[in-house]
């Protein structure tokens, strides 16, 4: 009788020999490992591998230190423009994710007969799992058409699952949370004002600016490595800073002037600044004459919007509004209003961002030192492949713009959002209703790559309802997040330290290309995204698009188009190219950087007018909170990335919970003190908490504030579970920006319900031990 069927063990040749020569091997005495202190990894042989980080999306160049087949440390390297040798806590904490025992380990298939969300899975081989996915997709294509498959993608690997594979498969229904839940208003407004997007990193000429105005822009809290370095250097150099924010943010604490604006009235403030610049003739006339169209219409439009008008709306003093406008003009063109990243606030966000860009334009700072530089993508060739049936729909972080450039392919149906928005990428939240209603046509399948459906898309109940309606739901991820464990098939991806990805092409003052390469072999039976996409493509009959034998050949072919190669790029990590950052560089080459219909900066947008939208920014009053309720505002933690990192004990040691900020006078009125626990309840009766109160003078009295990403409700997520509240869980609705398709998310109102019990949670340091 024998039970064993050995899978792990293999006798080495040496062992066999030893056995034959020394049958008394039982005498071998093993040392007791408990009796010895662990050896320090850095005393052994250490190699380094250059790559770029994935713990947020700044794409910092990193150096991974490897010893004995394990990554022990990650830091930045000086030659990379996005890290310059420095790395934030999230980047340095990435090692904890690679060696997180909770990682997805091998393909999983939902147990037949179990419901989505029940979390019952069996293991499967890659071949079986991919074959199930391919069969499901082909079935959907046969019954409903290829457009009935949707793809959601977030992170560097979205080049495979947001662009390459969907384009080869032929669906326009590709959504990215980084667009319509984040940047779409600023990108759309920039595209239709300057003819250029913003992208990442934001092309703000920090090195040369003397005056900075941040509007709801949380630098220092939404830590983007070199942006924060540049910002700090600018302040150290003596640049003046104005922060417009209902909350006294970290940036506000560094400011010369904090303007605690009433939430939702920013456009009124910007119109007033335009009014002062025009009426007091403080704008850059030469620049405006040479580079813009529509000034006269703008001047007429802003005439009524005096600082006194704005003061009554914004709760700011007219004198302060006027003073800032004059100071801006006094420092122009080395004065700048940088766009924030998360700009989906109230549903009229493209107009607000247009107003912000128009102030910049009147300061004459676009394409000028101290304002915005003209970012360019690096040059590199594609791997040759047949034309895709549909152009990739998702674009970059901002989404390739825009509506006027969209071509209607008569062979395929439009995206289910009907292509009405100016951001080219399909609005991710607008795909959800089509999954439920089947209108305008059925979306029957979804591949979600690295996208946390329940912590990013408002109206979680609606998202869950949509998932239940799908014929096929596939999740590709690193961790078993809540939404992942709803999928029919789960495909585990290797972490960024274990894989190649496509090259990162970063626009900048001097554009550059970054290589991602594996520092170690993938743990368990996980696979890189490129491999998953390719293997799936082959099973879908898309062989012609995946004719490269492996990723090394793919990358090498691309790199050779710029005279490099994979072998050369590996020790280099980053390849920096030349740029044309300023207007003078373009003029010298007789080139025009403004890719607008008029070829100039469009202060007045005829395109918007033709589409039925206001051609000049218009202020719309925000909805007011009902009596007894507060507007829910939210922001970021410098040591966390969205809802991705709350189970990382290294990072939770630094920031392990969120609290609800409440103005101190309001706290007194409600009988609450710092440290009291409350529930938060929205207008629809959704309740979150308990959460601790932070009574503070640092916030206006008409709103409350929480840090995004906390409030996980997963008992087995031992570190994250039960700590704080989720802002997204309270967002039962959003207000659609009709121009960009962005989902305005500052429209949630909550009440504070006192008397919540203090949660009994294990101490973080105990959980950090990760003991069984």
């Amino acid at each position, binding site marked *: 009788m024998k039970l064993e069927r050995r899978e792990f063990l293999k006798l080495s040749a040496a062992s066999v020999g030893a056995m034959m020569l020394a049958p008394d091997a039982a005498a071998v005495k093993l040392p*007791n490992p408990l009796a010895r202190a662990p050896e320090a990894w850095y005393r052994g042989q250490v190699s380094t591998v250059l790559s770029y980080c994935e713990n947020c999306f700044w794409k910092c160049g990193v150096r991974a230190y490897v010893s004995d087949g394990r990554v022990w440390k990650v830091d930045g390297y000086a030659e990379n423009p996005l890290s310059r040798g420095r790395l934030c806590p999230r980047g340095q904490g990435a090692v904890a994710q690679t060696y997180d025992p909770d990682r997805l380990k091998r393909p999983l298939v939902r147990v037949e007969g179990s419901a989505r969300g029940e979390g019952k899975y069996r293991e499967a081989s890659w071949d079986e799992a991919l074959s199930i996915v391919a069969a499901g997709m082909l079935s959907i294509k046969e019954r409903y058409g290829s457009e009935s498959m949707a793809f959601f993608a977030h992170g560097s690997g979205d080049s495979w699952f947001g662009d390459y594979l969907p384009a080869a498969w032929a669906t326009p229904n590709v959504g990215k949370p980084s667009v319509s839940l984040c940047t779409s208003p600023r990108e759309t407004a920039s595209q239709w004002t300057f003819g250029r997007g913003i992208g990442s990193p934001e092309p703000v000429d920090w090195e040369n600016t003397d005056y900075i105005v941040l509007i709801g822009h949380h630098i220092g809290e939404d830590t983007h490595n070199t942006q924060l370095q540049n910002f700090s250097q600018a302040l150290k150099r003596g640049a003046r800073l104005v922060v417009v924010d209902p909350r006294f943010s970290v940036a506000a604490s560094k400011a010369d002037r904090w303007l605690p604006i009433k939430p939702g009235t920013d456009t009124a403030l910007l119109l007033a600044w335009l009014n002062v610049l025009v009426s007091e003739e403080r704008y850059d006339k030469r620049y405006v004459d040479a580079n813009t169209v529509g000034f006269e219409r703008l001047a007429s439009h802003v005439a009524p919007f005096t600082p006194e008008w704005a003061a009554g709306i914004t709760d700011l003093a007219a004198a302060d509004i006027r003073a800032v406008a004059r100071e801006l003009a006094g420092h122009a063109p080395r004065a700048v209003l940088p766009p924030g990243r998360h700009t989906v606030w109230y549903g009229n966000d493209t107009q607000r961002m247009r107003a912000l860009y128009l102030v910049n334009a009147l300061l004459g700072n676009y394409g000028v030192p101290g304002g915005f530089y003209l970012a360019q993508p690096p040059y590199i060739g594609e791997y040759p492949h047949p034309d895709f049936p549909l152009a990739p729909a998702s674009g970059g972080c901002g989404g390739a713009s825009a509506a006027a450039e969209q071509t209607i392919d008569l062979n395929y149906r439009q995206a289910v959002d009907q292509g009405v928005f100016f951001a080219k990428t399909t609005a991710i939240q607008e795909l959800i209703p089509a999954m439920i209603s089947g209108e305008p046509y059925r979306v029957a399948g979804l591949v979600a790559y690295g996208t946390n459906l329940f912590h990013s898309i408002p109206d979680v109940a609606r998202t869950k309802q949509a998932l239940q309606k799908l014929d096929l739901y596939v999740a590709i991820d690193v961790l078993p997040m809540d939404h992942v464990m709803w999928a029919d098939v789960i495909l585990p991806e290797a972490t960024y330290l274990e894989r190649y990805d496509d090259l990162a092409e970063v626009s900048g003052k001097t554009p550059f290309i970054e290589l991602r390469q594996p520092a170690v072999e993938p743990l368990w039976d996980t696979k890189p995204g490129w491999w998953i996409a390719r293997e799936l493509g082959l099973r879908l009959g898309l062989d012609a698009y995946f004719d490269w034998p492996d990723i090394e050949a793919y990358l090498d072919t691309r790199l050779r188009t710029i005279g490099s190669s994979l072998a050369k790029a590996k020790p280099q990590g980053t390849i920096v190219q030349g740029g044309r950052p300023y207007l003078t560089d373009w003029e010298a080459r007789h080139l025009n950087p403004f890719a607008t219909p008029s070829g100039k900066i469009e202060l007045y947008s005829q395109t918007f007018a033709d589409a039925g939208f206001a051609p000049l920014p218009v202020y719309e009053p925000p909805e007011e909170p009902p009596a007894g309720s507060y507007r829910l505002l939210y922001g970021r933690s410098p040591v966390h990335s969205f809802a991705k990192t709350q189970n990382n004990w290294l990072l939770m040691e630094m920031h392990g919970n969120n609290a609800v900020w409440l103005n101190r006078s309001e706290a007194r009125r409600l009988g609450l003190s710092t440290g009291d626990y409350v529930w938060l309840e929205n207008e629809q009766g959704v309740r979150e908490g308990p959460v601790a109160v932070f009574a503070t003078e640092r916030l206006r009295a008409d709103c409350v504030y929480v840090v995004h990403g906390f409030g996980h409700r997963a008992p087995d*997520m031992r570190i994250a579970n039960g700590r704080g509240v989720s802002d997204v869980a309270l967002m039962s609705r959003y207000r659609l920006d009709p121009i960009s398709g962005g989902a305005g998310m500052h429209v949630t109102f909550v009440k504070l319900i006192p008397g919540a019990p203090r949660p009994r949670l294990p101490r973080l340091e105990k959980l950090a031990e990760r003991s069984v």
Partner: protein
Amino acid sequence: MEALESLVNYGSGVDVTSADALEAACQVVAALYRSPGEGLRDDLYSGRLGAVSDALAVWAGVDAPRAPHSPPAWDRLRAAYVGLFVSRAGGVPAPPYVGLVHDRELLGPRVRRLRAELAGLGIRPRAEWHELPDHLAAVAEAVDLLMEQGRVAAATTLAVNHLVPWFDRFAEAVAQHDESGFYGELTTFLHTVLSEVAP
């Protein structure tokens, strides 16, 4: 005579040593905590696993577990395995990794040392082993192999140093989170047996 046969004949005049029991227990551990495949299915539904468990129970003087004789449906068992040891929304309740307990991280110093010790004994993972080298089933296989080769001292030391010290916490976590009844009962039982054979 192989350890398992000794065990199932235990009580009919066959002399069973602690080494036999350890070898048998490790065979059960390896079979049970590997990714459930046809091997386990065969052992389970043919009654072999039940017979060995019963024999181990007699040897240890404890009640035999019922689970091997009335196992859950195969799909349910596989789902329970995934939920306990592989992936679960938010976290695995009972990660089956030796080094994790001692180092508080994966692939830490303990695992490097274990790997070196196994290499010194002429044991290394197969290329197709898509698990970590300190997986519970791997360590159990190593002990079993050494026993089979007659290297009792090395096997016992390996078990005492790497398998037994954390099995109590592992068994407690499995018992607490297992909804199938299968893994919880068997893991508690194996903890009792291992405490007897390799204290």
